[in-house]
C-alpha cells in the first residue's frame, strides 16, 4: 500500500503568491483595510499561518468531560410549581443540568423561582432525582442562604453529596457589582470560610465559589476585560478564603468560572480557551498544583434583541457552538425571548434543542479542542490571554477586584469600551441583524409569560447583619437598546394615532435609478420604527406628510435632484433629506433646501431619533 499524496498534484503556493492575488483584487486599496480589530484592539488578520507553523504556544487545556458538555436549562419561573413542571419537562427531554435562578440573581431580571424556605424548595424539587442531575445555583445576593437550603435538602434526602454534581455558585463580588452593596471584607472572608467548611462537613466536593462575569459583560466589557475580571475575582476569593482559614490549594479546587459566549464565534471560542490557559497560569504563579478549571458558559444576555427575536435563535446557536467547541464543561442557552420577558415553554424547548442538535446530531462534543492548530484561533487565544492577564494586573494594582469595584476602576475600564462599541452600533459599523439591519417593521409581537415574583418575596436564611461596602451598581445593557427605544416609540405612536411615524420617499427617475437607495433608505428608517410612503416628488402634497427624502442614483441626482427639491419645497415639505453623498451638488442642494444628506457611516441613531421625533410631531 503506497501513501497517496494528493496535494502533490497541485502547484506549491507561497504566502507571497496569495498576497499578490489579494493586492490585485484590492485594486489599490491598502492591504490593511482587510484587518479588523476586537474591542480590545486585538488585530484580526485576513489570513493566518497554520497553527503548526506558528511559534510554539502552550496548549490550551480542554474540557473535563471528554464526550459532551452538560446541557443546562435555566429554572427561573417565579411560580414554584410551574418552575417544577418546566424543569421536569427539560430533564426528560435532553437537559442534563439545571441552573436554579432565584430572584436575587444578577441574571434573574424581573423573574427567578420564588423559593422562600425549605418547604417551597421541596415543592420545587418534587420528582427530581438530585443525584442524577448537575445542579447549578444562581442565587446572587441570596447565594449563601440558597446554598444552605439546598445542602439541607440533599441531607434530608440522605444523598451522598460527594457523588452529586452540585455547584454552589457563590459570587459575592458579582452581587456587589450588580447591587452596589456587599458585606465588609473581614466579615465576608470569615463567612466565606465558614461556608466552605460547612459544605465540606456535608461532604460536598464541588465548586463553592464562582467567578461569574455576566454582570461585567452585561455592563459592556470587552473579552480581555471579562477574562481579567474573572481572574481577579478568582484571586480575590482565594485571598478571602485564605483569610477565612482555607488553604489556597483546597480553595482553588473549589472555585468555578462562569463566562459568556456571544454571536462572535471565533472570539468566543478563543475567549473560552484563554480562560483555561489563564487559570493554568494563575495556579502556576501561585505555586499551586495544576488542576482543571470548572468552566460554565452562558450565552450572553447583551446580544439578545427584543425585535425580530427569532434572530436570537441564530445568536444562541453560534454562541453555544462556540462555547462547546471552546471547551466549556457546561453550557446554558438563553431562550430566544429572554430579552422580552419571561420565556414560555416553547422558547425554552428551542433553547434546549439548539444544544441537543449540537450534542446529539452534530456530535460537536466528541472532538476534544477541535480548533487546536487553527492559526487564527490559536493566535487569538494567546492574544486574548495576554490582554486578559494585562487587565488582571491592572486590577491587582488597584488592590484587587473588591477595591477596583469600590473605587470605580472596573467601571471606567468598561465604560470606555462600551462607549466605543455603542458608537460602532449607531454607525452600523457593527450591524445588528433584525435591529439595525433588515428590520421587519410589521413583525408580530413575540409571546412571553406573564408571571411575577411576589412583591414581598424574601428567602429564609441566617438573617445575619453586618457592615457594608458600597460601589456604583453596574447598569446592564443590551446592544440593541438604542434602536429598540425608537421602535417602542413608534409602537406607542401607532397605538395612539393609528399610524406609525412616516416620511415620504421621493423617488426620482426610473426604478433602476432609485430602487437601490430607496430600499436602503426604507430599511434604515424601519430600524428606527419609521414607515415610508413612496412616490414621485410631485405626489408629495397628496401624501399629507411633512418630511421627505429624495432617493435615486448619482446620475439621476445630476439631472433632477435640484428640481425635485424645489418641487418638495413648493409643496410645503418642512424637512428635506437626500439619500447618498451629494458630491459637487452639495452647495446647490443645501441652498435649495436639503437639510440632511443620509449615507453609510453616519450615526444613524441620532439621525433616526431626530426624524422620528419630527414625524411624531414632538419637535420641529
Amino acid at each position, binding site marked *: 500500500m503506497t501513501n497517496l499524496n494528493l496535494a502533490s498534484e497541485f502547484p506549491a503556493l507561497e504566502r507571497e503568491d496569495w498576497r499578490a492575488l489579494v493586492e490585485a483584487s484590492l485594486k489599490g486599496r491598502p492591504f490593511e483595510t482587510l484587518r479588523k480589530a476586537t474591542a480590545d484592539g486585538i488585530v484580526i488578520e485576513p489570513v493566518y499561518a497554520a497553527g503548526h507553523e506558528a511559534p510554539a504556544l502552550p496548549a490550551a487545556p480542554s474540557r473535563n468531560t471528554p464526550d459532551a458538555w452538560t446541557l443546562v436549562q435555566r429554572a427561573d419561573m417565579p411560580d414554584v410549581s410551574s418552575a417544577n413542571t418546566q424543569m421536569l419537562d427539560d430533564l426528560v427531554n435532553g437537559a442534563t443540568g439545571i441552573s436554579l435562578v432565584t430572584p436575587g440573581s444578577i441574571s434573574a431580571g424581573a423573574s427567578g423561582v420564588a423559593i*422562600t*424556605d*425549605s*418547604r417551597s424548595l*421541596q415543592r420545587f424539587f418534587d420528582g427530581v432525582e438530585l443525584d442524577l442531575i448537575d445542579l447549578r445555583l444562581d442565587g446572587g445576593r441570596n447565594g*449563601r*442562604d440558597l446554598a*444552605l*437550603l439546598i*445542602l*439541607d*435538602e*440533599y*441531607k*434530608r*434526602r*440522605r444523598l451522598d453529596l460527594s457523588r452529586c454534581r452540585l455547584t454552589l455558585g457563590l459570587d459575592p463580588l458579582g452581587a456587589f457589582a450588580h447591587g452596589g452593596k456587599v458585606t465588609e471584607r473581614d466579615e465576608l472572608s*470569615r*463567612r466565606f470560610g*465558614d*461556608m466552605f*467548611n*460547612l459544605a465540606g*462537613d*456535608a461532604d460536598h466536593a464541588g465548586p463553592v465559589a464562582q467567578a461569574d462575569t455576566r454582570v461585567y459583560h452585561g455592563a459592556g466589557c470587552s473579552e480581555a476585560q471579562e477574562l481579567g475580571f474573572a481572574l481577579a475575582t478568582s484571586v480575590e476569593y482565594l485571598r478571602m478564603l485564605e483569610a477565612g482559614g482555607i488553604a489556597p490549594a483546597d480553595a482553588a479546587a473549589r472555585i468555578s468560572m462562569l463566562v459568556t459566549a456571544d454571536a462572535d464565534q471565533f472570539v468566543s471560542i478563543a475567549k473560552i480557551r484563554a480562560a483555561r490557559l489563564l487559570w493554568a497560569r494563575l495556579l502556576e504563579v501561585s505555586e499551586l498544583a495544576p488542576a482543571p478549571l470548572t468552566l460554565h458558559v452562558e450565552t450572553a444576555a447583551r446580544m439578545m434583541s427584543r425585535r425580530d427575536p427569532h434572530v436570537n435563535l441564530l445568536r444562541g446557536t453560534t454562541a453555544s457552538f462556540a462555547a462547546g467547541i471552546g471547551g466549556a464543561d457546561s453550557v446554558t442557552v438563553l431562550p430566544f425571548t429572554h430579552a422580552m420577558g419571561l420565556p414560555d415553554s416553547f422558547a425554552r424547548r428551542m433553547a434546549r434543542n439548539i444544544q441537543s442538535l449540537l450534542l446529539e446530531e452534530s456530535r460537536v462534543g466528541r472532538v476534544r479542542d477541535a480548533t487546536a492548530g487553527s492559526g487564527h484561533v490559536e493566535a487569538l487565544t494567546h492574544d486574548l490571554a495576554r490582554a486578559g492577564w494585562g487587565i488582571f494586573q491592572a486590577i491587582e494594582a488597584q488592590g484587587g477586584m473588591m477595591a477596583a469595584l469600590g473605587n470605580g476602576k472596573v467601571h471606567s475600564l468598561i465604560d470606555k469600551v462600551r462607549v466605543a462599541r455603542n458608537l460602532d452600533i449607531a454607525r452600523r459599523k457593527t450591524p445588528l441583524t433584525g435591529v439595525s439591519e433588515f428590520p421587519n417593521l410589521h413583525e408580530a409581537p413575540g409571546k412571553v409569560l406573564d408571571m411575577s415574583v411576589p*412583591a*414581598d*418575596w*424574601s*428567602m*429564609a*436564611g*441566617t*438573617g*445575619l*447583619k453586618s457592615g457594608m461596602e458600597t460601589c456604583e451598581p453596574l447598569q446592564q445593557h443590551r446592544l440593541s437598546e438604542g434602536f429598540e427605544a425608537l421602535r417602542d416609540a413608534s409602537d406607542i405612536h401607532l397605538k395612539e394615532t393609528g399610524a406609525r411615524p412616516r416620511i415620504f420617499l421621493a423617488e426620482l427617475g426610473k426604478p433602476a435609478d432609485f430602487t437601490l437607495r430607496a430600499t436602503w433608505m426604507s430599511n434604515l428608517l424601519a430600524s428606527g420604527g419609521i414607515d415610508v410612503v413612496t412616490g414621485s416628488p410631485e405626489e408629495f402634497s397628496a401624501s399629507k406628510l411633512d418630511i421627505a427624502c429624495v432617493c435615486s442614483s448619482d446620475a439621476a441626482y445630476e439631472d433632477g435632484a435640484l428640481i425635485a427639491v424645489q418641487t418638495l419645497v413648493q409643496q410645503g415639505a418642512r424637512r428635506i433629506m437626500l439619500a447618498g453623498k451629494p458630491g459637487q451638488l452639495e452647495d446647490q442642494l443645501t441652498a435649495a433646501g436639503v437639510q440632511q444628506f443620509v449615507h453609510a457611516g453616519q450615526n444613524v441613531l441620532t439621525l433616526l431619533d431626530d426624524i422620528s421625533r419630527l414625524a411624531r410631531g414632538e419637535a420641529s
Partner: protein
Amino acid sequence: MQDLIDRIVEKTGLAPDVAEKATGIMLSLVKTQGDKAKVTQLFDAIPGAGELAQLHGGDGARGGGLLGMLGGGLMGGPLAAVSKLQATGLNMDQIKVLGKETLGYAKEKAGEDLVKDVANSIPGISGYL
C-alpha cells in the same frame, strides 16, 4: 432554662451570654421550622424556651418580607442555624455539644416521643441527627 444554659457553658467552655444566644438560635430553628402545634406543646413543657427563641432567633416570620428581615429571624433550615451559630463564635464541636445537650434537656422535660415528633417535622434535620 437556666440549667440548660449552665450545662452548655460547662460542656463547651462558652461564655454564659454566648451560650444563651446559641441556645436561643437552636430553639428558634425548632420554632420556625417545626410543626406549629407540636412546637407549642414542646415549648409549653420547657419554661423560657419560647422567650429565648424569640429573643435570639427573631420572630421567625417566614417569607415575611421586610418586617421578617428586620426581626433578624428568617431561619432557613438546619444549616442556616449552624451558619448563624458559627457567626456567633461557636466551632463545629461546640455546635454538636449544643445540639446534643439541648436535645437531651428537651427529652427530660417533654418526653422522648414529643421531641422526636418535633424533630421529624423540621425539614432536613433528619440528615444531621
